[in-house]
């Protein structure tokens, strides 16, 4: 991968920079299995990803279930240890950090989970949920924590006086997600992974949460990795987007360009699957069988490829497509 990503790496002071990231999961590697000489099965969730995200940028990551997009997000905040490759945060290598360095990184990189019903401990009040990260990071002064919690709740537009002493089961999904976001920003991080933050919410309140994320990114200079399978929400808030398939990026670039003129056969299929509001446009049926690099003629795959290695092609400025033959 020497052609494409170079263009990205020149970005002025990226917050997060990822090179060749690989995350494999080993299944069935127990004591008994190893004694019986069974070789463990390997799942290649993330299989070589390059990526940079800058300040105040919302970077979209789309792909179907099982494409490895959530794993990538969770590896970036170090909930998983990468198998190979490197992650650097503001120029500092955080791939293999542990102990106090990891704790410092946790302060800078936060995650918002998909399920707002599961991400808040039902035994803790809103105040306790939002202040927990402060407690963990040793903010021992109660008044100081109070001020910061109220400030974070203000930022997510939740009236603190009304909700501080409520418990999660008393709140709606949208409110819970706002609380989860408040908790994520209370430590003033610079990077947030939003793992499908609106997919479990009612459509009527999705826009509010997306709006909030975009505004926070702008106001706080946050780098946001927005993971989703919903092209519509990606289009709504993302500056750039990458399409992920079987653990790899197959296409990335400016959101509008990628959506308007998808270059990779897989992206074309993905876009063809998005319902259109125009009654005149007939959706073309494409073979949904997941074989983007194979023999089908859905897109550019008819060309012959002379390269040995997977490589990127810049089809237009800031729009890269992976060679579909690899």
């Amino acid at each position, binding site marked *: 991968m020497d052609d494409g990503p170079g263009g990205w790496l020149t970005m002025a002071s990226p917050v997060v920079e990822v090179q060749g990231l690989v995350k494999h999961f080993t299944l069935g590697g127990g004591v008994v299995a190893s004694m019986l000489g069974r070789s463990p099965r390997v799942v290649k969730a993330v299989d070589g990803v390059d990526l940079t995200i800058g300040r105040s940028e919302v970077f979209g990551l789309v792909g179907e279930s099982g494409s490895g997009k959530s794993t990538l997000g969770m590896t970036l905040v170090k909930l998983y240890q990468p198998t190979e490759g490197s992650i650097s945060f503001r120029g500092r290598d955080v791939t293999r950090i542990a102990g106090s360095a990891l704790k410092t990184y946790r302060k800078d990189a936060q995650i918002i*989970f998909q399920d707002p019903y*599961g991400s808040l401990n039902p035994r803790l009040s809103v105040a306790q949920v939002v202040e927990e990260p402060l407690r963990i990071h040793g903010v021992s002064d109660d008044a100081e924590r109070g001020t910061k919690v109220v400030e974070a709740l203000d930022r997510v537009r939740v009236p603190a006086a009304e909700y501080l*002493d409520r418990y999660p089961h008393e709140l709606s999904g949208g409110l819970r997600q706002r609380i989860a976001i408040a908790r994520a920003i209370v430590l003033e991080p610079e990077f947030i992974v939003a793992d499908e933050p609106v997919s479990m919410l009612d459509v009527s309140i999705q826009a509010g949460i997306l709006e909030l994320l975009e505004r926070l990114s702008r106001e706080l200079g946050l780098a946001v990795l927005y993971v989703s399978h919903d092209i519509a929400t990606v289009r709504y808030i993302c500056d750039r987007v990458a399409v992920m398939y079987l653990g790899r990026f197959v296409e990335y670039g400016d959101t509008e360009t990628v959506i308007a003129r998808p270059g990779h056969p897989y992206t074309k299929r993905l876009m063809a699957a998005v319902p259109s509001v125009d009654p005149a446009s007939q959706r073309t049926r494409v073979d949904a069988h997941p074989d983007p690099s194979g023999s089908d003629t859905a897109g550019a795959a008819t060309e012959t490829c002379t390269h040995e290695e997977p490589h990127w092609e810049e089809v237009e400025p800031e729009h890269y497509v992976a060679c579909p033959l690899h």
Partner: protein
Amino acid sequence: MAEMVEFPGPGRGGPTRDVLEVWAGTRRRSGLAPFVDGLRLLVRDPFALVGLVIIAVFFLVAALSGFLAPYDPYEALPTPEGELARLETPSGDHWLGTTAFGNDVLSQLLVGTRVAFIVGISAAIVVGIISTLLGLLSGYYGRYVDDVIMRATDVALSIPTLPIAIVAVAILGASLRNIILVVVLLFWRNGARIVRSVVLTEKEKVYVQAARAAGASHLYIMRVHILPNVIPVAFLWMTMSVAFAILAEASLSFIGLGDPNAMSWGQMLNLAFTEGSIRTAWWWVLPPSLCLVFLISSIYVVGRAWEEKTNPRLRRR
């Protein structure tokens, strides 16, 4: 696009609530505060209150049994005519009658309360601590820690209960301390498995991952997010262990391995059984049975209410 408004109108307390006051209201007083709060909530539950009162009464009786018992529980008492007071029905002299050996049932019952508390409670506490600790470590850390602890549990589970108890007490000697030790050795294994299964579900909760992403240590996660969900289960297991402990003590007493210096409820029942009086001498059989039922169900009701009160979702507001 305007931001969606999703807040219901003015909520509890109206718009006049002061942020800092509300914040101060959410503060937990440190140390024993959760237990004090829990106790305060328990007292409001009628069932739990009754259970607590019964336990408290039994506890007082156990503590004061030496003063309360009208006779020596082992003394073979004579009738005014000079014969052995054998299987006498309740009367003014013997409120709960006498046994086939001429002992005063009430005195034995009162002394038995103390034995029940000593054996039941101390065994349950040790069982609770060991099971919680091993289950927590095994479930939370998984992998090799889990393998080692669970294989040890499997071995412990394969031990037949009563034969080992008999052998152990026979070797170590018949005393309350050894009976407690044997009960602990035999009952930590199920508790550890139960706690482990709870930990396995709890540690997969998204909020545990959220805490980890926030930088929480393993100790913090276990203490704040896992233990509160484990304790009610461990507590329930402990209440069952009380019953097991008392039963095990009775079983051992039955075959002559009970502490000869301690008259327990189980021992009373077993004596009544061996004397063939279990169907006839109701005054000998009913009191220890009822005491067992009341004490154990009270502990169970309090354990159940405790779980309900410490879990906000079950809390009736």
